[in-house]
């Protein structure tokens, strides 16, 4: 085995980063070679470092920050509610805007026939030359003119047509 690779494996084993089966294989390999002493030296060194870095006692921790959690929850809820309200208002605003903008959005000329059609029967019935109202009015007028006009100037006289006796 390559010396450098072997050294890396030995250090990894000392640091406790080798899988157990690989460690066993390495131990078996080193047992029959001169690397066993080196392996033990690395393990001793790591053990001393581990001991040196070990804390003397478990530290006491403060109480879990429940208040902070509540504040965070409240903030999160408030932010979500405000966002929802803002989105709702925005939607309503857009809807109102579209609703108000819709009549003026259409072409102006397109609206005129609608108005004309509403107003037309009143005026057009009289003004149009072929309208039924006008034809009816003309017919009634001519019929009235065609009928004889009775004059009855005195109760003792007989009535006369057109004032001619």
């Amino acid at each position: 085995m390559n010396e450098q690779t072997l050294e890396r494996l030995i250090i990894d084993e000392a640091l406790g980063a080798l899988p157990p089966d690989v460690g066993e294989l390495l131990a078996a390999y080193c047992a029959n070679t001169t690397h066993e002493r080196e392996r033990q030296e690395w393990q001793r060194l790591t053990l001393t470092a581990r001991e040196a870095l070990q804390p003397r006692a478990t530290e006491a921790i403060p109480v879990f920050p429940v208040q902070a959690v509540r504040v965070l929850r409240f903030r999160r809820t408030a932010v979500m509610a405000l966002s929802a309200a803002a989105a709702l208002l925005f939607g309503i605003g857009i809807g109102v805007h579209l609703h108000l903008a819709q009549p003026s959005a259409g072409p102006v000329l397109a609206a005129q026939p609608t108005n004309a059609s509403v107003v037309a029967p009143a005026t057009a019935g009289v003004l149009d030359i072929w309208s039924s109202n006008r034809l009816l009015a003309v017919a009634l007028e001519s019929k009235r003119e065609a009928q004889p006009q009775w004059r009855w100037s005195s109760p003792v006289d007989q009535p006369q047509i057109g004032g001619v006796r």
Partner: protein
Amino acid sequence: MSTRNIEHLYRAHGADLISYLRRGFGRWAAPEDLLHETFVQALRNQDRLTQAASPRAWLFGIARHVGLTAARKHRHADSLTDLPQHRDERRPQIEAMLDAIASLPEVLRETMELRLREQLSYEEIAQVMQIPVGTVRSRLHTAMKKLREILEAKNQSEREP
């Protein structure tokens, strides 16, 4: 991930985290405040906890970030990791080891501490420090070799008159 789970993590890892924060960043801020801030950040980002391979490493990563932020605020350029105190009660070998560890470059010392003290795996250290796993391994190997060199040099100097 609910608040109860975060509270469970607090109980499970709080002691290790406060110890880590005290040693690493205790000179710049109260460790209790840093721990508090760590869990506030954890709560804010608890969605990421479900994606984290190791909750412990995830919390250490947040704690490290919180500690570094506190350190940056105070603009200190000192080393990150303080070594355990009350050294006078320890054996001479451990005294020598503490001196050797103290003389290591900051990144090597921090990586080593996360491995040997906090017992994080290489992958977890990579997650905490946001570096590749290969870099973690390389740093640990370098740190070990340096320690060995320092201790051998010290032993040799003690033997010589």
